[in-house]
């Protein structure tokens, strides 16, 4: 009897809850966090990783393990050096690690992945002030470093290991074969990804599946791959028309090399790409244009890495050019 009355009294007496006061808005889209965006990228990478594991077997396992572990260790180490909380939960280091591994050739020695990871996280990211402050794509900074440092391991010949038991690795990469001998890989092999190349770049199909998932989830802006692909189509088309005899058609340009992998997973890194939709499209066009220029006129068979880094450096300028016109502005 007493209990009941107490209960009633407390009920009517208590506006007991602690009331917070804060400026509006009071609602937030709770399903959307930085971590969730990064996880989306990981999910989008699943088909690519699966294809890499299928085609390159232990090579892919090795590179993925090395790069992911090194990136996480580097992230923890540099965060500690900077006196920051352990930022591993935002998963950005995981993404950097996977993308880095997928951009390396399978037979690359172990130290390549380790050094690339530390450079990616340390010089590509931590030095600028951590996630969000970096102006270059960390994975590509790491890859560029090892590419110059260990030229022989990452040049066209670094992809090939004649004595390997894994089929793909015994061949030269399709772009290199074409550059050297003019022989053209079958389009179906390029599309499915049964050729040699960087671990993640070979399968156009896997890149498309993962990439389209990312674009639908809006964790990657569709404007960037759209820009890359349209630039590649236009320039590849011109090259194709200029040299009709060459078997390397515009579709080979599209499906060969790391163009699609770069378009969907590397160029779309939000930190180092522009903010506005128009800026993103311009950025994509620039990446695609540079890739094609490098492919057609430079000694490098594939140029996604340099194209992305070049356009990264132009991102602040593009942001400045593409300040959107607000609704109703003159």
């Amino acid at each position, binding site marked *: 009897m007493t209990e009941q009355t107490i209960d009633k009294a407390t009920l009517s007496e208590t506006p007991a809850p602690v009331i917070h006061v804060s400026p509006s808005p009071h609602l937030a889209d709770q399903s959307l966090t930085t971590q969730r965006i990064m996880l989306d990228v990981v999910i989008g990478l699943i088909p690519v990783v699966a294809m890499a594991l299928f085609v390159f077997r232990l090579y892919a396992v090795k590179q993925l393990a090395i790069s992911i572990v090194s990136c996480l260790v580097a992230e923890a180490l540099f965060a500690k050096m900077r006196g920051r909380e352990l930022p591993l939960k935002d998963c950005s280091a995981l993404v950097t690690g996977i993308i880095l591994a997928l951009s390396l050739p399978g037979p690359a020695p172990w130290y390549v992945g380790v050094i690339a990871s530390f450079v990616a996280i340390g010089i590509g990211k931590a030095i600028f002030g951590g996630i969000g402050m970096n102006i270059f794509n960390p994975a590509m900074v790491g890859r560029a470093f090892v590419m110059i440092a*260990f*030229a*022989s391991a990452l*040049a*066209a*010949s*670094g992809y090939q290991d004649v004595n390997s038991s894994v089929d793909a690795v015994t061949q030269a990469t399709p772009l290199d074969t074409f550059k*050297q001998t003019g022989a053209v890989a079958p389009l179906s092999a390029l599309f499915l990804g049964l050729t040699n190349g960087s671990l993640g770049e070979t399968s156009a199909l896997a890149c498309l599946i993962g990439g389209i998932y990312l674009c639908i989830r809006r964790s990657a802006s569709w404007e960037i791959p759209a820009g890359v692909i349209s630039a590649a189509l236009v320039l590849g088309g011109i090259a194709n028309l200029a040299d009709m005899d060459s078997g390397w058609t515009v579709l080979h340009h599209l499906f060969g090399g790391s163009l699609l992998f770069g378009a969907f997973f590397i160029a779309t890194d939000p930190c180092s790409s522009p903010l506005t939709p128009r800026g993103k499209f311009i950025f994509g066009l620039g990446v695609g244009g540079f890739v094609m220029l490098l492919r057609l006129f430079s*000694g490098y068979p594939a140029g996604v890495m340099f194209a992305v880094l070049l356009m990264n450096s132009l991102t602040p300028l593009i942001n400045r050019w593409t300040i959107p016109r607000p609704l109703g502005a003159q």
Partner: protein
Amino acid sequence: MTAQGKANFFSQAWLVLVLAICFGGLLAGMQILLGPIIETNKINETLERVPVLVFGAAHATELSQSGMEINPLSVGVEKAGKSVRYNVYETKSDGKLAGWVTKSAGQGYADKIEVLIGFDPRMEKITGLFVLDQKETPGLGNKILEDGWRGQFLDKSTAKPLMPVKGKATASNEIDAITGATISSKAVTDIINTAVADLREPLADKAKGK
């Protein structure tokens, strides 16, 4: 007014003038002292190489003591309406023509590659190759500097153009390309092929004429 102005000018600048004269004298003295040494250094840089390219590294040192003679020539070649000049060094041992060394250059992967090529007197085979200047990718293209790779060109016949191939060279006119640096390898081979094509006849004629 002008006189005063002039006086002012000198009072201001006398130190600069005095220093300029002192330093000028100092530099002139240095030039007289060191000039000849520097000149010799410059000439030696190329000439030191010449005997090695003609006689091979082993013989070059012995021979250099004896009556070796190196005459720099300039050979003009008419090519597609244009005149190209080559710096050629005529090498004589005891008065007898021992071989030719020519300086030649061409576009490499990164920048111009400059080489010295040695030939026998009749221009039939290559007796040596030295890379004077290159800026190829370290670790890849700059392997053209290595003795092992350059050694392949020794005793190659000039009859057929040389060909860099990937993997293992089999035919007599084939050269192993450097793995990962096919372009650099091809550049060097092309430089040699061009030099051979341009100089074979004029130099062989010269040798016969002697």
